[in-house]
């Protein structure tokens, strides 16, 4: 016989009447009463809470003042406990985070693992934490499963992030993505687990969101000044039990919930046994859902349960900033509901006169006179349980009366805000909003308009056909009714890396904690002491998302250093990234070093990536030893590569690095560079014949290989490579695609196997042959790529491009043009400047000159330059050679050239007949003036 028996009988009668006979309903109703009965009879006092519930917080504050317990057990991951001490250094809301990037025992694709538990000020758990931490002699014990178990218990096969309740995709507000893709855990999750029940409750409550329903039917009756603690407890357990019994939801979720309960009760029993604490002086704070548990391990008398060991994953812990909107987005709450809860809490505190607990020195709050709580002397007997439920359930919901002053304030404020955002709203609108709110609330069976009624009214009266500014009325209402509150982690609670960054940015004189974007100006010439700051900023830019630290002016590339820099810093609002960097190391340099090393040593690393890492190391770390290590790895990677896909990037990077090492006083080429060139030369020689033939390797790749071979040739030969290897490789290449054929011809030309005249002949033949004409564009593309390895062909490429435009028929030419343009666009830095310069030299500069212009490659003009004898020479050099012909004759004989010596100009100068002499003869003034000047 318990005190709840009459209620149980009453409910069973109701069940019999409505369900028309014994069935599930009486089981559920009777079970609910049993749950309440059991939870209340438990010697360890259970305090059921609901998340973001001001009523819970209020009841908690009252109960703590009254009972002053010695031990508080909290439903929070047990390994997060040490972080709670740091809360006082932060501006709430913040989230305690556990993070692991090296996973052991979980599927590797879950990495990185991250769990966040947000903590707001208007919550029961904060009251408990504040009381426990600031009252001497009180112990705070987190008893929920560790973060490791969160993942151990989440179903394999799905990614860990899927376990997350409702990650809202909408991320328009800045605060919403503060939690990243972490899995959220929360104290006191209480919500119907099946959507029909929720929809039904919302429909009949005439409310739109769950939070609104909760506020109206549970929160307000419980928060009213006369609702006592017993009623609160019984009602909360009853609701938890209702949701649990009516529809437990997804079976895997139920299993996890039950395991958590087993875990918590086992931990509490263990703690009580180990510490010898008095169970009657303890308080167990858990979600109402768990208070109504019926696992056999429930209660101090429950059976023990074996807790599975943690995996080998190494967890790192920290605090990250959170925000109301991030919490709403993560836990699928109505937008604005957490803010409204915070506002309700503040109002309830003033109205009821309850003194809430607050951590001493809590950042970002007004100083309250701290009321020192002390631990209560042990009280032997607990007061007997009485049935408060019957009265509560029987009475209609007590609704708040209208708070006219509050509503008027809102109406005036929303009109003011709307006007500021471009709406043409006036006092008349304020009156209309006020009136409409009351009418709407009346239609929805309540006297006091809820914030949601008010928002509806404001939208009706102020919103017209267009939104004039960035925000519409609904959003403005949300902002007005609490707005988003974004937390901040205080300096002392930051990981060492973040503190180090803050310290090192001090000389800049900007407020890095500010939530707005800060502009930092660095005049490195006038203030060379800012150099280290600049270095740090560049490293941060390399490590963090692009808009956190953004250079406006200044650049850092190999061999270049800015004199002045200007930066946009958003570190204050992106604290999470900095804190998560802190999990990787102690300084940013260390993190960068680790990341570079990881990039280079992953199995999928490529030579190009390794060279990029070398470049980063030179730019940001300046450690010769580390750079050399990365370089050596690049050599290894290159030698092991079997494809040439990244040849263009390798070429570009190694060229830049060689130029960097050769310039200035950098002690010449490091050993790894020489190694790289030597290895690359041999490597690319080996791959060249296959690359020429294989379809997988594109023209650009082959061109880059040739570019490497020809461009580094001098260096490679000086390092002991053999040119014959290259010659043989080229000889072995027999490409089939026209573009590669053209490339091969260019290579032949570079090697001296194919003179330009012969090359021109071949191209002309192609242009003259109607059968190959359609393939002509491909040849030209090949020649374009050949500009990289054989720059001396530039004039020839201009020539064939001109010929192509002149001679190719439109059906061939036009389809090719887009491809030409995209090629030139993609490779603009390498190809366009040389082509344009050469074209500028070849073509006339004015339109008028075009009429009389003949291309330099046309046969008529080409003749004089290819005269057999060449120009007649004169001057001291010619005199010397003519005077002592033996050496020249010997060289000629050696080369197999036969020729004869021509007579030297009579006066040792150029021929009179030459154009230059002719010009000077006709216009002697300049020459005479020069002669005068030189006193000749």
């Amino acid at each position, binding site marked *: 016989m318990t005190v709840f028996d009459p209620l149980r009988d009453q409910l069973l009668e109701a069940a019999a009447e409505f369900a028309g006979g014994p069935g599930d309903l009486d089981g559920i109703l009777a079970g609910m009463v049993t749950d309440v009965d059991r939870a209340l009879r438990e010697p360890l006092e259970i305090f059921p809470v609901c998340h973001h519930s001001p009523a819970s917080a209020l009841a908690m504050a009252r109960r703590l003042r009254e009972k002053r317990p010695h031990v508080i057990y909290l439903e929070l991951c047990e390994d997060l406990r040490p972080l709670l001490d740091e809360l006082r250094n932060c501006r709430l809301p913040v989230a305690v985070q556990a993070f692991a990037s090296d996973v052991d025992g979980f599927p590797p694709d879950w990495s990185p693992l991250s769990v966040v538990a947000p903590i707001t000020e208007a919550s029961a758990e904060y009251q408990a934490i504040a009381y426990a931490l600031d009252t001497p002699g009180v112990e705070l014990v987190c008893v929920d499963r560790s973060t490791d178990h969160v993942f151990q218990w989440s179903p394999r096969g799905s990614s860990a992030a899927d376990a997350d309740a409702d990650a809202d995709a909408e991320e328009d507000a800045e605060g919403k993505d503060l939690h990243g893709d972490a899995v959220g855990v929360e104290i006191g999750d209480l919500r119907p687990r099946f959507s029909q029940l929720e929809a039904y409750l919302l429909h009949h409550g005439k409310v739109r969101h769950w939070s609104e329903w909760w506020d109206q039917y549970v929160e307000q009756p419980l928060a009213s000044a006369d609702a006592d603690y017993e009623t609160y407890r019984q009602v909360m357990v009853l609701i938890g039990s209702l949701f649990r019994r009516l529809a437990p939801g997804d079976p895997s979720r139920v299993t996890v919930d039950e395991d958590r309960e087993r875990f918590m009760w086992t931990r509490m029993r263990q703690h009580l046994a180990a510490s010898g604490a008095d169970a009657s002086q303890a308080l167990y704070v858990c979600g109402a859902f768990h208070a109504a548990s019926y696992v056999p391990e429930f209660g101090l008398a429950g059976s023990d349960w074996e807790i599975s060991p943690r995996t080998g994953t190494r967890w790192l812990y920290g605090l990250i900033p959170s925000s109301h909107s991030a919490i709403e987005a993560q836990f699928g709450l109505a937008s604005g509901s957490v803010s409204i809860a915070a506002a309700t809490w503040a109002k309830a505190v003033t109205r009821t006169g309850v003194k809430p607990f607050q951590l001493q020195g809590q950042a970002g709050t007004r100083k309250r006179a701290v009321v020192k709580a002390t631990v209560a002397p042990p009280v032997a007997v607990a007061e007997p349980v009485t049935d408060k439920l019957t009265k509560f359930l029987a009475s209609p919901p007590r609704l708040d009366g209208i708070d006219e002053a509050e509503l008027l304030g809102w109406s005036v404020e929303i009109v003011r805000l709307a006007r500021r955002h471009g709406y043409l709203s006036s006092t008349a*609108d304020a009156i209309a909003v006020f009136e*409409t709110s009351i009418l709407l609330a009346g*239609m929805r069976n309540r006297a006091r308009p809820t914030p949601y009624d008010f928002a509806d009214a404001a939208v*009706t009266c102020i919103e017209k*056909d267009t939104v004039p500014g960035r925000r519409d009325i609904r959003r403005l209402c949300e902002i007005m009714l609490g707005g988003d509150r974004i937390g901040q982690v205080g300096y002392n609670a930051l990981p060492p890396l973040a503190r180090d960054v803050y310290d090192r940015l001090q000389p800049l004189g900007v407020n890095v904690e500010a939530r707005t974007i800060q502009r930092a100006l660095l005049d490195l010439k006038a203030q060379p002491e800012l150099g280290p700051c600049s270095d740090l900023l560049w490293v941060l830019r390399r490590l963090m998302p692009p808009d956190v630290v953004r250079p406006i002016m200044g650049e850092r590339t190999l061999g270049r250093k800015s004199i002045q820099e200007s930066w946009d810093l958003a570190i204050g609002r992106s604290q999470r990234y900095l804190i998560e960097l802190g999990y990787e190391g102690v300084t940013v340099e260390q993190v960068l070093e680790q990341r570079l090393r990881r990039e280079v040593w992953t199995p999928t690393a490529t030579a190009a990536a390794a060279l990029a890492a070398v470049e980063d190391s030179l730019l940001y770390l300046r450690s010769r030893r580390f750079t050399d290590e990365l370089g050596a790895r690049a050599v290894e990677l290159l030698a092991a590569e079997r494809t040439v896909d990244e040849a263009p990037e390798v070429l570009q990077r190694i060229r830049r690095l060689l130029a960097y090492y050769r310039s200035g006083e950098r002690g010449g080429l490091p050993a790894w560079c020489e190694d790289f060139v030597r290895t690359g030369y041999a490597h690319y020689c080996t791959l060249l014949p296959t690359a020429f033939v294989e379809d997988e390797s594109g023209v650009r790749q082959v061109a880059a290989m040739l570019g490497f071979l020809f461009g580094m040739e001098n260096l490679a030969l000086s390092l002991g490579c053999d040119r014959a290897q290259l010659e043989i490789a080229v000889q072995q290449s027999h490409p089939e695609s026209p573009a590669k054929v053209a490339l091969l011809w260019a290579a032949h030309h570079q090697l001296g196997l194919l003179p330009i005249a012969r090359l021109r002949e071949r191209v002309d033949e192609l242009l003259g042959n109607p059968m190959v004409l359609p393939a002509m564009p491909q040849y030209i593309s090949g020649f374009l790529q050949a500009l990289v390895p054989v720059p001396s062909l530039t004039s020839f490429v201009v020539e064939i491009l001109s010929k192509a435009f002149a001679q190719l028929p439109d059906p061939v030419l036009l389809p090719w043009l887009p491809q030409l343009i995209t090629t030139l666009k993609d490779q603009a830095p390498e190809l366009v400047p040389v082509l344009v310069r050469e074209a500028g030299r070849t073509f006339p500069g004015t339109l008028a000159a075009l009429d009389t212009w003949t291309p330099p490659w046309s046969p008529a003009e080409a003749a004089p330059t290819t005269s057999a004898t060449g120009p007649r020479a004169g001057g001291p050099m010619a005199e010397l050679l003519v005077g002592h012909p033996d050496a020249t004759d010997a060289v000629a004989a050696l080369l197999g050239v036969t020729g004869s010596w021509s007579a030297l100009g009579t006066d040792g100068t150029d021929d009179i007949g030459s154009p230059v002499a002719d010009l000077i003869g006709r216009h002697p003034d300049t020459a005479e003036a020069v002669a005068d000047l030189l006193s000749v």
Partner: protein
Amino acid sequence: MTENLLRAPAEVKYAEELDYLESIDTGAKPFTWRLSPRMVRMFVLGSERADGIDRQIPQKWFGDRSFVERAIVTLASDRGLLLIGDPGTGKSWLAELLAAAICRNSTLVVQGTAGTTEDHIKYSWNVAMVIARGQSRDSLIPSPIMTAMEQGVVGRFEELTRSTSDVQDALISILSEKYVSIPELDDDNIVFAKPGFSIIATANSRDRGVNDLSSALKRRFNFVRIPVVTNKASEAEIVRFRTVELLKRHQIELDVPPTLLDILLQSFADLRTAAASATSDDEKLESALSTAEQIGVLEDAILHSQFFGDAQLRAHTLAGSLVGSLARRSPEDLAILNKYWHGVVEPRSKADGGEWPEFLAGGREAIATLS
């Protein structure tokens, strides 16, 4: 009375229901309203078991409850109500229901067109009578709005944005001063609005920019935006509700198989998705693809099967009606429908079977005929 009318106004059609609601209404009624706001809501949105009344009130307008609540509340305040939305979203139907529920008169309607003049809003004169007896209240022809003012009931203004700005602005003084003066008369020359007078206007959001409302007029209206119904369940409900009504009106006994209704809803949903992802006007159908359009298609198909078919609604006919109703521009609309038929309907008919193959054939035929 209803059987002699092609289309009875809501207050006539639902007269009995309104009488019943009035008889059980105990709530406070604003001004001269016949029903309290909660009863108006129940009339429009239907009753539930939890309301505890002893007969079922069917739902007549389908949409979010808050729209109706906001509309009712606006009419109880001193502002006009402007329902704005895409064509076919049920704005006029909602306006009619509200007027019928509040004052049992939904026929005081001014239709906004390019040719609407100020006389249509205020008053005009019976010229013959003026010549015979001079200007007096007897020779005055009041507009529907003026009549509504005199009687203290709700006046309606359809397609407000179709009429020119100067005509629209005639409403400003009516909405703020709540009287119309008749300067032609020496005495009795002001018509004051009685309590309960209000205006429900509708505007088509596709007409935006044709005759924009002045900000003075905007200020006097509360805007309630009615979105296109995209929820498939409620859309099916609307189509079913309206079809039953149509069949009754045409006195046709014909069954609409649920599978065909599904096909219709699915095709509209598909075409809407396609229209949403189109980048230019040429890539989307000219039709707004509203629920009203679906009802139109279904009605067309029903009538066709009744008079030219075997009195059975078939997928073939439905496809023909769909193509016929949606292909307005040639070749753009036809090209889109052709693409839809071959890209979506064909694979679906292979995968799902059922009525889809017949639907596919009918659509193909219709497209071929029109092309």
